[in-house]
């Protein structure tokens, strides 16, 4: 009983069922209502790979008072809409947590296939008649999922009208009966939950108050990217659908035309990236979005963007690879391709946000950086981040610069405009079609300052130097945190160096081990290329050992860090297709902390 909390301030609910059960929809209503109330939210759904079919769906939502960075390894509530899918997940419910299941399933259930037989001793069982309640409310079993949401709300004494509003909004476009049936089902569930034995006796505390200067919105990574684009006043978008990036394009398809922007679905990814290079050449703020397979097709054109020095933005949401791989699973294994997948010496700018708010920021800043440094910029997400919901506080004022270009002056009479002028800051003043007297041709051939083909040694050396030095200066771009250290200052036993969506789990792990007395810091690296070498070096100087947890097999970020700095790190790699377990990181830190300070052959 010692473990049992008095007031719950951090609740994680998992809905689990098959695709036809409305599992995801139930999770959606729950998280929207809680976000609306003002709580912090992190939520992530897991789908089956088939369109239809009866694969397993899990919708997990964590609701907290203060900001947290990842889902918890253990949920407080597991709600099963289909026991055959949910039984394997019983183990992830904490002691004295609730397991809620159908009491009176339609068909007779085989021995051992009913949830009640699988609960662990300290878990609290709640058998509920979802089907019967649904039928009572609406004369059909279709609303079992809504009954379930109602039951949880009742169980925790959450405000009924909050949910009514959310349900109303969700079905706003539909006939009034739809909303009514849903509310009826919700209420029956609620009543049932409210009158049962209360799981956390003091209930769930009230949400924190908000600042007036921000709008708090619940959204997933892809919608945050779309919002970032809109805030940065994106002009054109060209894309080709691919999981898990498609929703970026689908949101923009709805929103851009309203603001005068133009979006075109192209015939493939090669055309999409070629079109943004064309658009970028004209001064348009242009972007595309894709996943690993599409990025593989884009590498040739991105090389053109680098040498021709054209601003454009590529959003990449990674999924399980290689090849078609695991389209509905998460992974961080397209990093090599993003950073090094290009013919010739063409360094790229690659940004990797670590949470949903970061998706918004990186998306907007990407346009600034692309313009300022005249180069393609990749913003690298993954399925976990693309689909993960968080309550994000957006600034009321647009935080992005709407023009970051260094413009050229019209050349004097008789002088030609030099598109690739060699300058002290390595950036050549720009001109775009329509400007008089500045006509020029950009090219993928090595060229002189005028842009004419030129393959002389000194010219290629000078231009290679320019292109690389230019990007290095991007590390100091004023409006962007390219890396940041958290946790203990000064010398530490273990340093966790992390990127992308996995950083949330690293942060949670770091916080936990510090409580256990291990000195530890975690550094997130947002600019993966060019790498903020100095900051990382200083961080590594402070750490006895450095751990790099990543969701890929090869330790791709670890190799990039070692390849750039020539110093060893420890790899921690998982390829389960799911977010990294915080406990795995904690364990690895504990092992490293217990080990002798000097471990030489660390690189393997």
């Amino acid at each position, binding site marked *: 009983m010692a473990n049992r909390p008095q007031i719950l301030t951090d609740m994680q609910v998992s809905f689990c069922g098959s695709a036809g059960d409305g599992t995801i929809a139930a999770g959606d209503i729950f998280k929207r209502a809680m976000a609306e109330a003002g709580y912090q939210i992190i939520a992530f759904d897991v789908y089956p790979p088939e369109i239809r079919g009866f694969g397993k769906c899990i919708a997990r939502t964590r609701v907290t008072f203060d900001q947290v960075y990842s889902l918890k390894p253990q949920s407080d509530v597991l709600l099963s809409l289909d026991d055959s899918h949910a039984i394997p997940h019983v183990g992830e419910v904490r002691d004295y947590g609730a397991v809620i299941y159908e009491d009176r399933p339609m068909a007779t259930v085989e021995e051992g296939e009913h949830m009640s037989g699988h609960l662990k001793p300290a878990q609290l069982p709640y058998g509920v008649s979802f089907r019967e309640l649904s039928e009572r409310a609406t004369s059909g079993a279709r609303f079992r999922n809504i009954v379930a949401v109602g039951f949880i709300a009742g169980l925790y004494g959450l405000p009924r009208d909050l949910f009514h509003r959310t349900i109303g909004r969700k079905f706003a476009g539909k006939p009034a009966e739809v909303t009514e049936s849903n509310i009826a089902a919700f209420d029956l569930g609620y009543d049932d939950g409210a009158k049962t034995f209360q799981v956390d006796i003091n209930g769930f505390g009230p949400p924190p108050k908000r600042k007036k200067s921000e709008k708090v919105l619940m959204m997933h990574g892809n919608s945050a990217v779309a919002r970032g684009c809109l805030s940065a006043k994106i*002009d*054109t978008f*060209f894309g080709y659908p691919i999981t898990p990036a498609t929703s970026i394009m689908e949101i923009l398809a*709805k929103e851009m*035309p*309203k603001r*005068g922007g*133009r979006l*075109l679905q*192209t*015939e*493939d990814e*090669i*055309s*999409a990236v*070629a*079109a*943004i*290079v*064309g*658009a*970028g*050449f*004209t*001064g*348009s703020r*242009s972007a595309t979005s894709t996943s690993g397979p599409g990025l593989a097709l884009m590498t*040739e*054109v991105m090389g*053109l963007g680098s040498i*021709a020095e054209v601003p454009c933005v590529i959003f990449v949401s990674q999924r399980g690879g290689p090849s078609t791989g695991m389209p509905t699973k998460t992974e961080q294994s397209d990093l090599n391709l993003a950073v090094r997948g290009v013919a010739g010496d063409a360094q790229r700018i690659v940004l990797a946000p670590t949470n949903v708010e970061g998706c918004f920021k990186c998306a907007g800043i990407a346009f600034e950086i692309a313009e300022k440094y005249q180069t393609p910029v990749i913003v690298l997400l993954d399925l976990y981040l693309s689909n993960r919901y968080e309550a994000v506080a957006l600034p009321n004022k647009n935080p992005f610069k709407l023009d970051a270009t260094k413009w050229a002056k019209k050349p004097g009479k008789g002088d*030609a405009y030099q598109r690739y002028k060699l300058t002290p800051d390595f950036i050549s003043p720009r001109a775009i*079609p*329509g*400007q*008089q*007297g*500045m*006509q*020029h*041709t*950009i*090219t*993928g*051939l090595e060229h002189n300052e005028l842009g*004419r*083909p030129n393959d002389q040694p000194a010219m290629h050396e000078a231009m290679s130097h320019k292109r690389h030095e230019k990007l290095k200066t991007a590390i100091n771009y004023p409006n962007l945190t390219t890396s940041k250290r958290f946790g203990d200052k000064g010398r530490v036993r273990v340093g966790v160096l992390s990127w992308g969506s996995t950083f949330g789990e690293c942060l949670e792990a770091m916080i936990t081990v510090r409580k256990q007395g291990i000195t530890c810091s975690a550094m997130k690296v947002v600019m993966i290329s060019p790498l903020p070498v100095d900051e990382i070096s200083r961080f590594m100087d402070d750490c006895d050992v450095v751990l790099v947890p990543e969701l890929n097999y090869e330790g791709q970020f670890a190799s990039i860090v070692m390849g750039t700095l020539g110093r060893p790190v420890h790899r921690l790699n998982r390829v389960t297709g799911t977010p990294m377990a915080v406990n795995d990181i904690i364990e690895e830190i504990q092992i490293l902390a217990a080990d002798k300070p000097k471990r030489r052959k660390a690189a393997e």
Partner: protein
Amino acid sequence: MTNIGAPVYLEEKLEEISRSGRLDYRSKSLPTWCPGCGYFSIVESVTAALNRLEIDPCETTVVSGIGCASRFPFFVNTYGVHSLHGRALPVATGIKVAKEDQTVIVVGGDGDAFAIGGAHIPHAARRNIDITYILFDNGIYGLTKGQASPTSVLGFKTGTSPFGNQDRPLNPLMMLLSHGASWVGQAYAGNPGHLSEMICQAIAHRGFSYLHVLSPCVTFDKTTKTYKNLGMMVRGLPDDHDQSDVMAAMHEAQKTEQPALGLFYTENRPTLGDGLNEISRRSQAGS
């Protein structure tokens, strides 16, 4: 039309040209093509057309892929993108969608268009994007020193077909008609007067215009599509050809043994830009 003149080179016409104002459209880089290459007359005709249509060089962007033909943008004084092998059309699509008021001209070779770039043509045509595509067909890969192209004739011996090409050549005009291009014409580098006229019309057309230009590669094709052979083959379209009848156009396009010069087909229909404007309108109207 049967009276096809000899090729005409810049040098000979220098006097006339400098008077005309065309030179404003020429860049300071002289073409690096082989002497006698058919491409010289195309660059000449394009500058003449822009001059005649009074389109400001700074309001024009010429986009190309890779190949001898694709060196073109360096030789004109407009904005230009010398892009990648096969990718001129999608780059041009980006430019036109982003900047509707630019006159966008795409140039390139037969390999660039119908081999590596083949996925893009149907979509430019069906969307009716308002650009002009001038295709330089020499039936060979020039820049890589002579390999078979999708328009190489059967039996042609090249570096990659040393025992004679066995793949039936494509029929670009048929293809473009079947894709729904709204302006489809053919010209011949050896008939620069007619070529010039066609380029003018193609640029003036509102929508996607495709001009197929037969142009000998004097260096790597000494036997098939030479000036001599082409000169004997080309003919005009029948006097009663109906330019609004797509089946009639296809009928003429089938006769590849006697390529017809002229405008095969044209129609007026909304462009991609019109469609995008319509979407904007609807979205702002709330549906």
